[in-house]
């Protein structure tokens, strides 16, 4: 018997013992509490005494409150317009019969996997530079500011809404709509009175994710914001020695308000009534007609290609000159100050991403199983299910800042790299746990019972039944964690000191791109373009790797 078989047999054997199972869940819970939940909460709480320093400075208070308000206003607005654009796109993908369907389905994920710093530069080039659509209007069409921030957040949150809604529509039992049609409802009427109310939980879920994504975004926002200031930019700007009080003020308010909004959505969301009582058969008949459907699809495609995809990929245009003007050679040979920083930064980003992913996979797995199977009882599991949402909905820059406060406050010398890793672990943890918990809960528990009755020990049930069935969600969750970590800017900036030699690739690119911005628009740099291009290329490779690994297997 080989070593692997011996280890497997040993693990199978000890997994039968209740103490082993409790120990595994205990470690998972302890990890969540000590590394994910407590540090950011405690870090801020211990410094709340600095609140009054800000309150006593009206100008600073006003600036901070304004910035915080901007963060939430934009996040809520972006969430709503993402729903308005994302739901028709999801409808088009899930229900459409057009030949553009597969194209849109494949391309819809792109803005999600493009690192946000590359997205920010791409949008800036498209809307603000003479190389983009601005060139057609003889100047800067959209200057850096809140409009560009909204456009940016709209673009990178759009795929989240589309994927959630496509999944919901695929799971939705179309028979309800058929029933409504046989009772006399036109398609639009059936969708409004039957489909949307049933899909409401998914719509709310999609809104929350888009909102959370917007509120957390820092790096690309810095690039496109100009003088506009939201909470993340406020924290990043003031992250210098002597500004602890306003940072505590802003971070704590961002965290508290985000949690409050999330709680309100959870409580009031299910009570939100979609108007089903008012009817207008003739109007809904017109809306259901072929012309209106074509118009709707046309607007959906236009929005997707012109407002979302083209601006998102525009940065690749700046990478093409690099292929012929010698920049590529410099890149591959690491010649020049940019490339001498770029490759080590990229390696650092991928290293941090890898470590964060590995730690979260190993230690998040018990939490996912515990939530999905309610191992600690219904109430406890439900509480953890709720708490696991916190790292997603809390702005990552605030999370990173308070995390940094906590760990630096301990009587230990913690290397900055470890702080960054802790921050990335905290930020990405929930993506994996939620995704995996949802997948496991969809597996009929009778399958586990059947395996146990046939003689499988708990660990054997997990590796032979659960894991193969959740392979898709497992790897998808891991990939999302990894790409999220590689893209993460805000928390990194919040944790490292301004003079830190540690520069992840998004931080490096943000600094370079900021230097390209002039009053007349952003300049094009083939180095930065190629750097962004490499990031996109590697992200696409990772996505293809995911599809290759899980190809055709049973998907949960």
């Amino acid at each position, binding site marked *: 018997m080989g070593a692997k078989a011996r280890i497997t047999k040993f693990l199978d054997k000890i997994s039968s013992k209740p103490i082993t199972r409790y120990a595994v869940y205990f470690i998972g819970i302890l990890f969540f509490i000590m590394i994910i939940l407590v540090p950011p909460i405690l870090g801020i709480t211990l410094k709340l005494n600095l609140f009054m320093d800000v309150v006593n400075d009206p100008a600073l208070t006003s600036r901070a409150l304004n910035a915080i308000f901007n963060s939430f206003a934009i996040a809520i607005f972006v969430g709503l317009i993402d729903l308005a654009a994302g739901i028709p796109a999801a409808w088009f993908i899930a229900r459409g019969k057009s030949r553009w369907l597969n194209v849109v389905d494949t391309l819809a994920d792109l803005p999600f996997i493009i690192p946000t710093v590359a997205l920010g530069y791409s949008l800036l080039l498209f809307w603000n530079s003479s190389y983009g659509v601005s060139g057609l209007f003889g100047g800067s069409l959209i200057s850096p500011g809140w409009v560009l921030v909204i456009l940016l957040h709209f673009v990178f949150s759009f795929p989240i809404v589309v994927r959630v809604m496509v999944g919901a529509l695929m799971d939705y039992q179309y028979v309800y709509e058929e029933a409504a049609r*046989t009772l006399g409802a036109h398609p639009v009427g059936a969708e409004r009175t039957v489909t949307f109310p049933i899909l409401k939980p998914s719509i709310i879920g999609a809104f929350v994710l888009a909102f959370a994504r917007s509120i957390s975004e820092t790096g690309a926002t810095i690039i496109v914001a100009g003088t506009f200031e939201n909470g993340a930019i406020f924290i990043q700007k003031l992250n210098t020695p002597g500004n602890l009080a306003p940072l505590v003020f802003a971070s704590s308010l961002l965290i508290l308000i985000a949690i409050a909004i999330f709680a309100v959505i959870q409580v009031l969301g299910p009570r939100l009534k979609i108007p089903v009582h008012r009817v207008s*058969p003739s109007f809904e008949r017109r809306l259901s007609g072929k012309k209106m459907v074509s118009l709707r699809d046309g607007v959906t495609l236009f929005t997707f290609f012109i407002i979302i995809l083209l601006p998102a990929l525009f940065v690749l245009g700046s990478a093409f000159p690099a292929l012929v003007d010698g920049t590529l050679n410099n890149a591959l040979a690491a010649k020049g100050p940019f490339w001498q920083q770029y490759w080590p930064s990229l390696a650092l980003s991928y290293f941090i991403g890898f470590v964060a992913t590995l730690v979260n996979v190993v230690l998040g797995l018990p939490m996912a199983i515990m939530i999905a199977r309610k191992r600690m009882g219904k109430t406890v599991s439900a509480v953890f299910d709720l708490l696991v949402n916190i790292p997603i909905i809390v702005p990552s820059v605030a999370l990173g800042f308070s995390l940094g406060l906590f760990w630096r406050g301990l009587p230990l010398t913690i290397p900055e790299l470890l702080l960054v890793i802790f921050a990335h672990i905290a930020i990405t943890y929930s993506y994996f746990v939620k995704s995996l918990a949802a997948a496991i809960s969809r597996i009929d528990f009778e399958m586990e019972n059947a395996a146990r009755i046939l003689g499988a020990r708990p660990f054997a049930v997990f590796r032979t039944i659960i894991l193969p069935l959740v392979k898709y969600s497992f790897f998808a969750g891991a990939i999302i964690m990894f790409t999220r970590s590689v893209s993460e800017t805000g928390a990194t900036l919040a944790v490292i000191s301004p003079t830190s030699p540690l520069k992840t690739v998004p931080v490096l690119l943000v600094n370079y791109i900021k230097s390209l911005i002039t009053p007349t628009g952003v300049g094009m740099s083939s180095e930065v373009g190629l750097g962004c291009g490499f990031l996109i290329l590697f992200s696409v490779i990772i996505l293809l790797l995911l599809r290759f690994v899980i190809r055709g297997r049973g998907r949960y």
Partner: protein
Amino acid sequence: MPDVKVVSVTKTFGDGKIVAVDDVSLEVHDKEYLSLVGPSGCGKTTLLRLIAGLIQPDKGEIYIDNVSMKNVPPEDRGVGFVFQTYALFPHMNVWRNVTYGPHIKALDEKNAAALGRETLEMMRLYERSDAYPSELSGGMMQRVAVARALAAGAKLLLLDEPLGALDAKIRNELRYDIRHLVKDLGLTAIHVTHDQAEAMAISDRIAVMRKGKILQVGTPTELYMNPEHLFVANFIGESNFLEGYVIGVDEGLTKIKLRGNLTVNSANAKVGEKDERIVLAVRPEALRLQRGLKKTQNGLQGKVKDVTFEGTVTRYEILLANEDRVIVTMPSLAGEPYNMGEEVTVSFEPEKSHVFPYPPRGLMDELKLE
């Protein structure tokens, strides 16, 4: 009141790879209760959905009340559809579900409420108006689904295995309730089921489908007494099948040689050529048993291999002298029961048998329930 005409309708899926409905023509008369029966996957639900307008045929036409339904969407066909899974809207209570049809068509509120109340009272569910589907039993959900279809004002009711998800006792009760309701309201109904006993109990006529085609349409009696197809003889009721050859035809009787040189006569042969290979079908209740070895018309000698008491009838499995096996059912109270191993003579009247051509792909393939 509507009648329905299906004219040469074909429906395929998977780019033509799966032929779900294959050149089907069918007429359902006004106020008729017609059942579509057949094994799973035979196309009966597809045909129903074509009539409802939920899918469109690749070829052929469908007429409701002599009006072509080409390009007419389901909401404009005036049909009521009861789904197999009921499809009750989970976010609406019973009242809102039932009044959905009149409401979505913006009918007068008072009339809509009156219709809703009337149909719920018909279904004995008015007191449960505030309940949500998740709070109802299977039988209640089924009745709400029927009430909802009726309250929408449908004159043509399409029922897709409405009793499939219910337990046997409730199924037996509800099947008659549905029929009585349809007849009392003067509706036309097309009822899909794979349960031939259910179809026999409640239908004016039955259409038997297999592999996308309609094999035979007739009253339950016609289908049972005069099946025109081997599959129909097997699917509707039960039959014994014996293989043989035609020896000749004499005075309207077709003489048949079975295996082991046993000869019998049949008065209902769909074949007549000498030496033609055939299958003889006889229902278990059409076979008579006599003790001992007797010489009698259409007599076949054998031994009792198995006895099953089923209450009203007793079922005997007889191993014939030629190694064929037949099932004989006899009223349990008609005389002394037969014992295992007892020698008996099995016989039947020529008029109570049917002869079919031997199927090209073999008997087992022809009788397969798919």
